[in-house]
């Protein structure tokens, strides 16, 4: 290894890494710790590392306030977005990686511009339009909106994965008498799974993490978990309510931590996917 850090710098660099890990993880650890505490212990002076454990906040949030309903809503919306987004994204990504004309190029540039547009801009149009069309507060509406918003990112990423699959594979299939659809479904997709999983993870994160669109398009019984969190944090200043918010936040975080635990390799591949090749 020719890029070893000089020995005399090691103590400095190691403590720097240690500090970073601490800073990266501490907000999570602390949030997790205080979610099991009575408000007095959570905000005590001086701060306590250990305190009696209570499940009261989780009980209130999940059972009394019906957070489980919002969890189901989030599941429906996220899975719906994931399925539709990957289906139409794979078709487009494949075509973009195989088509040689200028049109594909302009489409990619347009997608890049679309990706940059802040979501509140679209919301200005969605609000009056969906209201007058009467498709407010429906799963399908939110799913299709999230799909559209994620498409620019999805097709860029999938295209770069499809580009890695040699075109000889298509040609062989076409020579053997497959048409384009058959080639795509039977020959290309079976070797695309790593790319699909990676892109799927990011589509999942985009849908799961969205706050603005979800909280605006859905209300009442259709709220997603993230949107429901605003009930606890913006309603009033009582400490009990705040603790319920902490419990809700921890509930939203846990699936994400599990996700990283299992799919770390794919997430790293995805973040670097299009970029590292240049």
């Amino acid at each position, binding site marked *: 290894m*020719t*890029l070893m850090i000089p020995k005399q710098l090691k103590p400095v660099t190691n403590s*720097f*890494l240690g500090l*970073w890990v601490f800073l990266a*993880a501490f*907000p*999570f650890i602390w949030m997790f710790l205080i979610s099991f505490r009575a408000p007095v212990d959570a*905000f*005590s*002076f001086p*701060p306590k590392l250990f305190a009696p454990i209570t499940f009261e906040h989780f009980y209130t949030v999940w059972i009394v306030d019906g957070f489980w309903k919002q969890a189901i809503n989030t599941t429906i919306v996220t899975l719906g977005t994931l399925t539709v987004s990957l*289906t139409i994204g794979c*078709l*487009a990504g494949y*075509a973009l990686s*195989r*088509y*040689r*004309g*200028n*049109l594909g*190029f302009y489409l990619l540039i347009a997608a890049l*511009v*679309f990706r940059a547009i*802040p*979501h*509140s*801009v*679209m*919301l*200005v*149009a969605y609000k*009056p*339009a969906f209201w007058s069309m009467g498709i407010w507060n429906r799963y399908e509406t939110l799913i299709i*909106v999230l*799909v*559209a918003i994620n*498409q620019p990112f999805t*097709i860029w990423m999938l295209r770069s994965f499809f580009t890695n699959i040699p075109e000889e594979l298509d040609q062989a299939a076409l020579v053997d008498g497959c048409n384009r659809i058959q080639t795509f479904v039977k020959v290309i997709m079976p070797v695309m799974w790593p790319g699909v999983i990676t892109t799927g993870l990011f589509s999942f*994160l985009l849908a*799961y993490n969205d*706050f*603005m669109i979800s909280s*605006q398009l859905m209300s009442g019984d259709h709220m997603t978990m*993230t949107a429901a*969190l*605003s009930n606890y*944090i913006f309603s009033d200043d009582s400490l009990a309510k*705040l603790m319920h*918010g902490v419990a809700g936040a921890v509930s939203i*975080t846990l699936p*994400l931590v599990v996700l*990283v635990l299992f799919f*770390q390799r794919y997430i*790293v591949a995805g*973040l*670097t996917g299009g*970029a*590292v090749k240049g």
Partner: protein
Amino acid sequence: MNLKNFLAFVGPSVLAMLALIAVPLLGVAYLSVQSSYVKTEIVEVESKVPLFGGLTKTTIEKVPQPVLDENGNPVKVWEYVGGRNYDTVADPGGLVEAIRKDRSKTAEGQPTSYRQRMYGIYRDVTDVDFWGALEFTLLYIIVTTPCIIILGFVLAILVNSVVKWIRGPLIFCSLLPHIITPVVGSLSIYWLFLDNAIVAALLEQLGMGKVYFLKSAFSIRSLIILYGVWHVTPFAFVILYAGLQTVPQDALQAAEVDGANYFQRVRYIIIPHLTALFSFIILIHLMDAYRIFEPVLVFGSNLFANSLQYLTYYILNFEDNYSKAAASAILTVIGIVILLLPSLRRTYREQKGLI
């Protein structure tokens, strides 16, 4: 692949983007030059006013009343108003006035310094919501971008030099701030800095006195920027870490043989090798930083820190003024296009060369 197949394959995706991004954008542009008011008509109302002794006087008054449709709802009329909504949002008149205003003397009649005059202009300009939002959005971009690039690069170099088995856990911890739901991430930081929460309590124990993080513009802005660095550094780190794996080893060895020390190797071999990645990170971060929203919402009070995306959201939800929100939205879009133009042009050239 021929054109017909291409169009069939990209059809659904393009349709989704057209219907839910492009058309709404046009709709917003249209909305931004319109304004609505409730249609009224002048109605003659006959009323009897009692006078003395049982006598009444009949008066006929002309009163404006909203016109109702068949369902009994007031009829809204939309009319073309040109740039009026933009004027309301960006207040160009006020802007000119703020710059032209005579600031040569303070209220007490003392002559002012150049710095005081500049600060006065800054205060008056950022007083208009839109310019204040633009100011903090740009400040956020300008401060966070170098921070995440430098921090991400240092982390990538360091993680790359530790023993293999420890890299996995390091990357795991580093990824957490990036994949976390932004609202939850902002909240997890916010809860640390509440007046009676752990950070303030620890500082007080250390004898720093009571620190109120959420009471001043400076500390709130710092916290939002801190959150941004915490949230995006992992992204830069992971990309640069992967880039480090592709650095040609023979070049590094040759440099070492030629007597280049560690920092020279980093400066002349590693950094040039990663240039494309740096510009990729900057491009993505520009887009994401420009639409910063959640931390502004959580740290609250657009009094202290506002962002363009939050401004549109605020006008839409709390002022309930679609036309004004549309004008603010269009100005936001113009801003991002200007900001991205250099990067877009470069991407355009690069990709043009590839295809």
